């Protein structure tokens, strides 16, 4: 079975600072990975995804993530955050042998302070 661990439940940072949100997964087979963002009282919005190929993936709003198979990680990064990036971020993993279901981590609350 697949699982996802988001190592930090809360990450406070100052505006314009860099940020990294960590995600590790466990799976015995080939996986594909997503990062979603959830703003208050809104649905999940896709930030970026890794399906195959290049391990560095760029998404919306200046975010990027790197797939590291040897470390089973898919950390999310942004070089300079804005107040508007304050939200809950979820890492999710799918695997071809599990059909189309996604397994989500517990989320990381990013709070950007002025």
């Amino acid at each position, binding site marked *: 079975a697949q699982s*996802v661990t*988001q190592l930090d439940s809360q990450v406070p940072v100052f505006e314009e600072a860099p940020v990294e949100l960590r995600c590790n997964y466990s799976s015995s087979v080939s996986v*594909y990975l*997503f990062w*979603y963002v959830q703003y208050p*009282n*809104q*649905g*999940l*919005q*896709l930030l970026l*995804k890794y*399906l195959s190929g290049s391990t560095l993936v760029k998404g919306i709003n200046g975010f990027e993530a790197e797939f590291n198979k040897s470390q089973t990680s898919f950390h999310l990064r942004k070089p300079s955050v804005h107040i508007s990036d304050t939200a809950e971020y*979820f890492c*999710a993993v*799918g695997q*071809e042998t599990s*059909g*189309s*279901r*996604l*397994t*989500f*981590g*517990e*989320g990381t609350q990013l709070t950007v302070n002025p």
Partner: protein
Amino acid sequence: GAGVSQTPSNKVTEKGKYVELRCDPISGHTALYWYRQSLGQGPEFLIYFQGTGAADDSGLPNDRFFAVRPEGSVSTLKIQRTERGDSAVYLCASSLSGGKQTQYFGPGTRLLVL
């Protein structure tokens, strides 16, 4: 274009009652998913439809939960004899097809069982 919509946005019911939650997927999407998100947790998979049929219902917690998608578009999640532990946000998502396709989420239905 229109995204995934869910109704109602909020539902308050009493323990033991029956509830129905509705999901309208993005037009043309053949795959539809239901997830449940408890407070402070990531979404948890419930069921996946491909067309009219449930391709994977392994996430349904017990036989009080049932979902249908009779015409391959709108889906209804049905919960019988609700319990306080059923209180959560119920999320619906759709994708163009199954597999690695991006899942687009609706805003959710917040269910509170008193």
